[in-house]
Protein backbone atom coordinates (compact mmCIF):
# COMPACT_ATOMS: atom_id res chain seq x y z
CA UNK A 1 0.00 0.00 0.00
CA UNK A 2 2.76 2.47 0.92
CA UNK A 3 4.27 2.39 -2.57
CA UNK A 4 1.07 3.60 -4.22
CA UNK A 5 0.70 7.23 -5.20
CA UNK A 6 -1.68 9.53 -3.34
CA UNK A 7 -4.40 9.35 -5.99
CA UNK A 8 -4.57 5.57 -5.88
CA UNK A 9 -4.57 5.51 -2.08
CA UNK A 10 -7.54 7.87 -2.06
CA UNK A 11 -9.40 5.92 -4.74
CA UNK A 12 -8.79 2.65 -2.92
CA UNK A 13 -10.05 4.05 0.39
CA UNK A 14 -13.18 5.66 -1.10
CA UNK A 15 -14.38 3.03 -3.56
CA UNK A 16 -12.43 -0.19 -3.71
CA UNK A 17 -11.94 -0.90 -0.01
CA UNK A 18 -14.79 1.24 1.29
CA UNK A 19 -14.72 1.24 5.10
CA UNK A 20 -18.42 0.46 5.49
CA UNK A 21 -19.31 -1.95 2.73
CA UNK A 22 -16.04 -3.75 2.05
CA UNK A 23 -14.15 -3.60 5.35
CA UNK A 24 -17.24 -3.73 7.62
CA UNK A 25 -16.12 -0.95 9.94
CA UNK A 26 -18.43 1.46 11.76
CA UNK A 27 -21.58 -0.54 11.07
CA UNK A 28 -23.32 0.38 14.33
CA UNK A 29 -23.41 4.00 13.19
CA UNK A 30 -24.26 2.91 9.66
CA UNK A 31 -27.49 1.23 10.77
CA UNK A 32 -28.14 3.40 13.82
CA UNK A 33 -28.05 6.93 12.39
CA UNK A 34 -29.13 6.45 8.78
CA UNK A 35 -32.86 7.04 9.18
CA UNK A 36 -32.72 10.41 7.36
CA UNK A 37 -30.28 12.26 5.12
CA UNK A 38 -29.64 15.25 7.37
CA UNK A 39 -28.49 13.33 10.45
CA UNK A 40 -26.42 10.94 8.36
CA UNK A 41 -24.64 13.87 6.73
CA UNK A 42 -23.88 15.35 10.17
CA UNK A 43 -22.52 12.00 11.32
CA UNK A 44 -20.44 11.69 8.16
CA UNK A 45 -18.84 15.12 8.61
CA UNK A 46 -18.04 14.37 12.25
CA UNK A 47 -16.47 11.05 11.22
CA UNK A 48 -14.25 12.67 8.56
CA UNK A 49 -13.07 15.25 11.06
CA UNK A 50 -12.29 12.83 13.89
CA UNK A 51 -10.85 10.19 11.55
CA UNK A 52 -8.20 12.55 10.15
CA UNK A 53 -7.29 13.90 13.59
CA UNK A 54 -7.16 10.46 15.20
CA UNK A 55 -5.09 8.88 12.43
CA UNK A 56 -2.55 11.71 12.47
CA UNK A 57 -2.33 11.64 16.27
CA UNK A 58 -1.98 7.86 16.16
CA UNK A 59 0.74 8.06 13.52
CA UNK A 60 2.72 10.60 15.54
CA UNK A 61 2.33 8.57 18.71
CA UNK A 62 3.33 5.32 17.05
CA UNK A 63 6.43 6.82 15.47
CA UNK A 64 7.64 8.97 18.34
CA UNK A 65 6.61 6.98 21.41
CA UNK A 66 5.80 3.33 20.73
CA UNK A 67 7.92 2.01 17.87
CA UNK A 68 11.41 1.16 19.22
CA UNK A 69 13.23 2.00 15.96
CA UNK A 70 12.01 5.56 15.61
CA UNK A 71 10.86 6.53 19.10
CA UNK A 72 12.46 9.08 21.37
CA UNK A 73 13.09 6.57 24.14
CA UNK A 74 14.23 3.54 22.10
CA UNK A 75 11.97 1.27 24.17
CA UNK A 76 9.57 -1.23 22.61
CA UNK A 77 6.16 -0.07 23.75
CA UNK A 78 4.10 -1.51 20.88
CA UNK A 79 2.11 -3.68 23.28
CA UNK A 80 0.50 -0.45 24.51
CA UNK A 81 -0.86 0.33 21.05
CA UNK A 82 -4.50 -0.66 21.60
CA UNK A 83 -4.83 1.01 25.00
CA UNK A 84 -3.01 4.20 24.05
CA UNK A 85 -4.81 4.69 20.71
CA UNK A 86 -8.27 4.32 22.20
CA UNK A 87 -7.44 6.71 25.05
CA UNK A 88 -5.99 9.28 22.65
CA UNK A 89 -9.08 9.04 20.47
CA UNK A 90 -11.42 9.42 23.46
CA UNK A 91 -9.60 12.49 24.75
CA UNK A 92 -9.25 13.95 21.25
CA UNK A 93 -13.01 13.68 20.75
CA UNK A 94 -13.60 15.50 24.05
CA UNK A 95 -11.13 18.22 23.09
CA UNK A 96 -12.63 18.67 19.65
CA UNK A 97 -16.10 18.94 21.10
CA UNK A 98 -14.96 21.76 23.39
CA UNK A 99 -13.06 23.58 20.62
CA UNK A 100 -15.95 23.38 18.17
CA UNK A 101 -18.46 24.54 20.77
CA UNK A 102 -16.25 27.51 21.58
CA UNK A 103 -15.35 28.63 18.05
CA UNK A 104 -18.14 27.54 15.75
CA UNK A 105 -21.63 27.20 17.22
CA UNK A 106 -23.05 26.53 13.74
CA UNK A 107 -20.75 23.56 13.19
CA UNK A 108 -21.47 22.38 16.72
CA UNK A 109 -25.18 22.42 15.91
CA UNK A 110 -24.53 20.31 12.82
CA UNK A 111 -22.29 17.61 14.29
CA UNK A 112 -21.94 18.20 18.04
CA UNK A 113 -24.29 15.48 19.20
CA UNK A 114 -22.54 12.85 17.09
CA UNK A 115 -19.07 13.48 18.48
CA UNK A 116 -19.44 11.47 21.73
CA UNK A 117 -20.84 8.52 19.76
CA UNK A 118 -17.74 8.45 17.59
CA UNK A 119 -15.43 7.31 20.38
CA UNK A 120 -16.73 3.76 20.05
CA UNK A 121 -17.00 3.88 16.25
CA UNK A 122 -14.62 1.15 15.22
CA UNK A 123 -13.90 2.78 11.84
CA UNK A 124 -11.88 5.52 13.56
CA UNK A 125 -9.64 3.16 15.51
CA UNK A 126 -9.34 0.78 12.57
CA UNK A 127 -8.21 3.46 10.10
CA UNK A 128 -5.61 4.61 12.63
CA UNK A 129 -4.39 0.98 12.98
CA UNK A 130 -4.47 0.30 9.23
CA UNK A 131 -2.39 3.34 8.33
CA UNK A 132 0.29 1.98 10.69
CA UNK A 133 -0.08 -1.60 9.38
CA UNK A 134 0.22 -0.41 5.75
CA UNK A 135 3.36 1.56 6.83
CA UNK A 136 2.11 4.79 5.29
CA UNK A 137 4.08 8.00 5.79
CA UNK A 138 2.57 11.11 7.35
CA UNK A 139 1.20 12.66 4.15
CA UNK A 140 -0.19 9.33 2.96
CA UNK A 141 -1.89 8.85 6.34
CA UNK A 142 -3.53 12.26 5.94
CA UNK A 143 -4.85 11.36 2.47
CA UNK A 144 -5.86 7.83 3.46
CA UNK A 145 -7.83 8.84 6.54
CA UNK A 146 -9.53 11.75 4.75
CA UNK A 147 -10.51 9.51 1.83
CA UNK A 148 -11.78 6.78 4.15
CA UNK A 149 -13.96 9.42 5.85
CA UNK A 150 -15.27 10.60 2.47
CA UNK A 151 -16.09 6.99 1.59
CA UNK A 152 -17.96 6.59 4.88
CA UNK A 153 -19.96 9.80 4.36
CA UNK A 154 -20.81 9.02 0.75
CA UNK A 155 -22.13 5.54 1.52
CA UNK A 156 -24.07 6.54 4.65
CA UNK A 157 -25.79 9.42 2.81
CA UNK A 158 -26.73 7.20 -0.16
CA UNK A 159 -27.97 4.55 2.26
CA UNK A 160 -30.05 7.09 4.24
CA UNK A 161 -31.72 8.33 1.08
CA UNK A 162 -32.58 4.74 0.10
CA UNK A 163 -33.97 4.06 3.57
CA UNK A 164 -36.16 7.17 3.38
CA UNK A 165 -37.76 5.76 0.24
CA UNK A 166 -38.00 2.21 1.60
CA UNK A 167 -39.79 3.40 4.74
CA UNK A 168 -42.74 4.27 2.47
CA UNK A 169 -42.68 0.99 0.56
CA UNK A 170 -45.00 -1.95 1.35
CA UNK A 171 -42.42 -4.22 3.03
CA UNK A 172 -43.65 -7.48 4.71
CA UNK A 173 -44.15 -7.05 8.45
CA UNK A 174 -41.22 -9.22 9.63
CA UNK A 175 -38.81 -7.47 7.25
CA UNK A 176 -39.71 -3.91 8.33
CA UNK A 177 -36.92 -1.58 9.40
CA UNK A 178 -33.72 -3.52 10.14
CA UNK A 179 -33.99 -6.67 7.98
CA UNK A 180 -34.82 -4.72 4.84
CA UNK A 181 -32.04 -2.26 5.67
CA UNK A 182 -29.57 -5.15 5.77
CA UNK A 183 -30.80 -6.43 2.43
CA UNK A 184 -30.47 -2.93 0.93
CA UNK A 185 -26.91 -2.75 2.30
CA UNK A 186 -26.25 -6.14 0.72
CA UNK A 187 -27.29 -4.84 -2.70
CA UNK A 188 -25.12 -1.74 -2.22
CA UNK A 189 -22.17 -3.96 -1.29
CA UNK A 190 -22.81 -5.95 -4.47
CA UNK A 191 -22.52 -2.73 -6.48
CA UNK A 192 -19.30 -1.76 -4.70
CA UNK A 193 -17.95 -5.24 -5.41
CA UNK A 194 -17.92 -4.11 -9.04
CA UNK A 195 -15.08 -1.71 -8.22
CA UNK A 196 -12.81 -4.61 -7.18
CA UNK A 197 -9.81 -4.91 -9.42
CA UNK A 198 -10.03 -1.34 -10.71
CA UNK A 199 -6.44 -0.18 -11.57
CA UNK A 200 -5.28 -3.59 -10.35
CA UNK A 201 -5.96 -2.72 -6.68
Amino acid at each position, binding site marked *: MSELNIFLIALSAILIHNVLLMRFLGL*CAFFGVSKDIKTSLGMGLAVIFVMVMASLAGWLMHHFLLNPETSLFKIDLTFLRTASFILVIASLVQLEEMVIRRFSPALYQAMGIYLPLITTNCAILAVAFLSIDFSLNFAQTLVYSFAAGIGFTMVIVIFASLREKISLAPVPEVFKDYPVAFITASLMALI*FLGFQGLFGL
Partner: protein
Amino acid sequence: MKEKVFTRGFIRENPVLILMIGLCPIMACSTSLRDALGMGLATIFVLFCSNFSIALIRRIIPPQIRIPVFIVIISTFVTITDYTMHAYLPALYKSLGVFVPLIVVNCIILGRAEAFASKNSLIKAIFDGLGMGIGFLAAIGAIGLIREALGTGAITNPTALFFIPPFKIVLAGEGFSPAVMMILPPGAFLTIGFLIAGLRRLKGKTVV
Protein backbone atom coordinates in the same frame (compact mmCIF):
# COMPACT_ATOMS: atom_id res chain seq x y z
CA MET B 1 -32.95 -14.83 38.98
CA LYS B 2 -29.41 -15.89 38.21
CA GLU B 3 -30.68 -18.22 35.51
CA LYS B 4 -32.57 -15.35 33.94
CA VAL B 5 -29.47 -13.14 33.94
CA PHE B 6 -27.55 -15.99 32.34
CA THR B 7 -29.99 -17.13 29.66
CA ARG B 8 -31.55 -13.88 28.50
CA GLY B 9 -28.55 -13.11 26.28
CA PHE B 10 -29.05 -16.33 24.30
CA ILE B 11 -32.13 -15.31 22.32
CA ARG B 12 -34.52 -12.93 24.06
CA GLU B 13 -31.97 -10.13 24.46
CA ASN B 14 -29.43 -11.46 21.99
CA PRO B 15 -26.87 -8.64 21.64
CA VAL B 16 -26.53 -9.07 17.89
CA LEU B 17 -29.84 -10.19 16.46
CA ILE B 18 -32.17 -8.26 18.79
CA LEU B 19 -30.16 -5.32 20.15
CA MET B 20 -28.13 -4.81 16.91
CA ILE B 21 -24.82 -4.02 18.57
CA GLY B 22 -21.34 -5.34 17.84
CA LEU B 23 -22.10 -5.76 14.15
CA CYS B 24 -18.65 -5.14 12.70
CA PRO B 25 -16.91 -8.35 13.88
CA ILE B 26 -20.10 -10.31 13.11
CA MET B 27 -19.89 -9.30 9.46
CA ALA B 28 -16.15 -9.30 8.95
CA CYS B 29 -15.21 -12.48 10.81
CA SER B 30 -17.96 -14.81 9.59
CA THR B 31 -16.58 -15.95 6.23
CA SER B 32 -15.90 -19.39 7.73
CA LEU B 33 -17.05 -21.32 10.78
CA ARG B 34 -13.50 -21.43 12.14
CA ASP B 35 -13.04 -17.64 12.03
CA ALA B 36 -16.50 -17.12 13.49
CA LEU B 37 -15.89 -19.43 16.45
CA GLY B 38 -12.44 -17.95 17.02
CA MET B 39 -13.87 -14.44 17.14
CA GLY B 40 -16.76 -15.57 19.34
CA LEU B 41 -14.47 -17.26 21.87
CA ALA B 42 -12.11 -14.27 21.98
CA THR B 43 -15.05 -11.96 22.63
CA ILE B 44 -16.43 -14.24 25.38
CA PHE B 45 -13.02 -14.20 27.07
CA VAL B 46 -12.76 -10.40 27.01
CA LEU B 47 -16.40 -9.89 28.01
CA PHE B 48 -16.13 -12.32 30.92
CA CYS B 49 -12.85 -10.85 32.21
CA SER B 50 -13.95 -7.23 31.87
CA ASN B 51 -17.33 -7.85 33.54
CA PHE B 52 -15.53 -9.72 36.34
CA SER B 53 -12.91 -7.01 36.99
CA ILE B 54 -15.33 -4.12 36.70
CA ALA B 55 -17.84 -5.69 39.08
CA LEU B 56 -14.97 -6.40 41.47
CA ILE B 57 -13.78 -2.79 41.67
CA ARG B 58 -17.05 -1.01 40.92
CA ARG B 59 -17.23 0.64 44.36
CA ILE B 60 -13.82 2.30 44.11
CA ILE B 61 -14.11 3.71 40.58
CA PRO B 62 -14.95 7.44 40.74
CA PRO B 63 -18.13 7.87 38.65
CA GLN B 64 -16.76 10.86 36.68
CA ILE B 65 -13.92 8.88 35.10
CA ARG B 66 -15.63 5.49 34.87
CA ILE B 67 -15.63 5.31 31.03
CA PRO B 68 -11.84 5.79 30.66
CA VAL B 69 -11.30 3.25 33.46
CA PHE B 70 -13.55 0.73 31.69
CA ILE B 71 -11.69 1.32 28.42
CA VAL B 72 -8.30 0.73 30.04
CA ILE B 73 -9.52 -2.49 31.69
CA ILE B 74 -11.05 -3.76 28.45
CA SER B 75 -8.01 -2.89 26.37
CA THR B 76 -5.77 -4.78 28.81
CA PHE B 77 -7.71 -7.99 28.18
CA VAL B 78 -7.83 -7.29 24.44
CA THR B 79 -4.05 -6.93 24.37
CA ILE B 80 -3.70 -10.24 26.24
CA THR B 81 -5.98 -11.92 23.68
CA ASP B 82 -4.16 -10.25 20.79
CA TYR B 83 -0.70 -11.42 21.86
CA THR B 84 -1.84 -14.91 22.91
CA MET B 85 -3.63 -15.51 19.62
CA HIS B 86 -0.66 -14.15 17.66
CA ALA B 87 1.66 -16.61 19.42
CA TYR B 88 -0.44 -19.79 19.48
CA LEU B 89 -2.98 -19.48 16.64
CA PRO B 90 -1.12 -17.57 13.90
CA ALA B 91 -3.38 -18.74 11.05
CA LEU B 92 -6.53 -17.59 12.86
CA TYR B 93 -4.81 -14.34 13.86
CA LYS B 94 -3.91 -13.66 10.24
CA SER B 95 -7.42 -14.18 8.92
CA LEU B 96 -9.09 -12.11 11.67
CA GLY B 97 -6.53 -9.34 11.13
CA VAL B 98 -7.29 -5.90 12.50
CA PHE B 99 -10.52 -7.16 14.12
CA VAL B 100 -8.62 -8.72 17.04
CA PRO B 101 -7.43 -5.38 18.50
CA LEU B 102 -10.80 -3.91 17.49
CA ILE B 103 -12.57 -6.06 20.12
CA VAL B 104 -11.82 -3.06 22.35
CA VAL B 105 -14.45 -0.96 20.58
CA ASN B 106 -17.04 -3.74 20.42
CA CYS B 107 -20.13 -1.97 21.76
CA ILE B 108 -21.32 -5.13 23.55
CA ILE B 109 -18.37 -5.12 25.95
CA LEU B 110 -18.44 -1.44 26.91
CA GLY B 111 -22.24 -1.59 26.92
CA ARG B 112 -22.36 -4.49 29.42
CA ALA B 113 -19.69 -2.80 31.56
CA GLU B 114 -21.66 0.44 31.74
CA ALA B 115 -25.19 -0.98 31.90
CA PHE B 116 -24.69 -4.09 34.03
CA ALA B 117 -21.31 -4.90 35.57
CA SER B 118 -20.84 -1.48 37.17
CA LYS B 119 -24.20 -1.74 38.94
CA ASN B 120 -24.52 -5.39 39.97
CA SER B 121 -22.89 -7.98 42.19
CA LEU B 122 -19.90 -10.02 41.09
CA ILE B 123 -21.85 -13.27 40.62
CA LYS B 124 -24.52 -11.61 38.50
CA ALA B 125 -21.91 -9.81 36.39
CA ILE B 126 -20.11 -13.10 35.69
CA PHE B 127 -23.32 -14.78 34.56
CA ASP B 128 -24.29 -11.76 32.48
CA GLY B 129 -20.89 -11.71 30.75
CA LEU B 130 -21.03 -15.43 29.98
CA GLY B 131 -24.65 -15.30 28.82
CA MET B 132 -24.19 -12.33 26.52
CA GLY B 133 -20.95 -13.85 25.23
CA ILE B 134 -22.70 -17.11 24.40
CA GLY B 135 -25.42 -15.14 22.60
CA PHE B 136 -22.72 -13.43 20.53
CA LEU B 137 -20.98 -16.75 19.83
CA ALA B 138 -24.28 -18.34 18.76
CA ALA B 139 -25.09 -15.49 16.38
CA ILE B 140 -21.63 -15.32 14.79
CA GLY B 141 -21.39 -19.11 14.63
CA ALA B 142 -24.77 -19.42 12.88
CA ILE B 143 -23.85 -16.74 10.36
CA GLY B 144 -20.41 -18.29 9.76
CA LEU B 145 -21.97 -21.72 9.24
CA ILE B 146 -24.57 -20.44 6.76
CA ARG B 147 -22.08 -18.35 4.80
CA GLU B 148 -19.43 -21.04 4.57
CA ALA B 149 -21.89 -23.80 3.68
CA LEU B 150 -23.59 -21.81 0.93
CA GLY B 151 -20.46 -20.05 -0.27
CA THR B 152 -18.13 -23.04 -0.59
CA GLY B 153 -20.36 -26.12 -0.28
CA ALA B 154 -18.14 -27.48 2.49
CA ILE B 155 -17.31 -26.77 6.11
CA THR B 156 -13.74 -26.55 7.33
CA ASN B 157 -13.70 -28.39 10.60
CA PRO B 158 -13.26 -25.81 13.36
CA THR B 159 -11.11 -28.18 15.45
CA ALA B 160 -8.11 -26.29 14.04
CA LEU B 161 -8.81 -23.90 16.92
CA PHE B 162 -7.74 -26.60 19.35
CA PHE B 163 -4.57 -27.65 17.53
CA ILE B 164 -6.15 -30.61 15.71
CA PRO B 165 -5.37 -30.53 11.99
CA PRO B 166 -8.37 -29.25 10.03
CA PHE B 167 -10.26 -31.34 7.53
CA LYS B 168 -13.13 -30.44 5.26
CA ILE B 169 -16.65 -31.80 5.62
CA VAL B 170 -18.15 -31.76 2.14
CA LEU B 171 -21.86 -31.04 2.32
CA ALA B 172 -22.82 -30.91 -1.33
CA GLY B 173 -22.08 -33.21 -4.25
CA GLU B 174 -20.28 -32.53 -7.51
CA GLY B 175 -23.28 -30.85 -9.13
CA PHE B 176 -23.43 -28.05 -6.55
CA SER B 177 -22.00 -24.77 -7.73
CA PRO B 178 -21.28 -22.65 -4.64
CA ALA B 179 -22.79 -19.17 -4.34
CA VAL B 180 -19.50 -17.29 -4.02
CA MET B 181 -21.40 -14.11 -3.17
CA MET B 182 -22.12 -15.54 0.28
CA ILE B 183 -18.49 -15.40 1.38
CA LEU B 184 -18.05 -11.93 -0.14
CA PRO B 185 -19.30 -8.81 1.70
CA PRO B 186 -22.87 -8.76 0.24
CA GLY B 187 -23.55 -12.25 1.62
CA ALA B 188 -22.87 -11.06 5.18
CA PHE B 189 -25.54 -8.38 5.03
CA LEU B 190 -27.99 -10.73 3.31
CA THR B 191 -27.54 -13.54 5.86
CA ILE B 192 -27.99 -11.32 8.89
CA GLY B 193 -31.03 -9.61 7.33
CA PHE B 194 -32.78 -12.93 6.79
CA LEU B 195 -31.75 -14.23 10.24
CA ILE B 196 -33.27 -11.20 11.97
CA ALA B 197 -36.46 -11.52 9.94
CA GLY B 198 -36.65 -15.24 10.77
CA LEU B 199 -36.14 -14.60 14.47
CA ARG B 200 -38.88 -11.96 14.45
CA ARG B 201 -41.22 -14.40 12.77
CA LEU B 202 -40.50 -16.99 15.49
CA LYS B 203 -40.91 -14.38 18.20
CA GLY B 204 -44.28 -13.35 16.83
CA LYS B 205 -45.59 -16.91 17.15
CA THR B 206 -44.22 -17.86 20.55
CA VAL B 207 -42.82 -15.77 23.35
CA VAL B 208 -39.16 -16.75 23.32
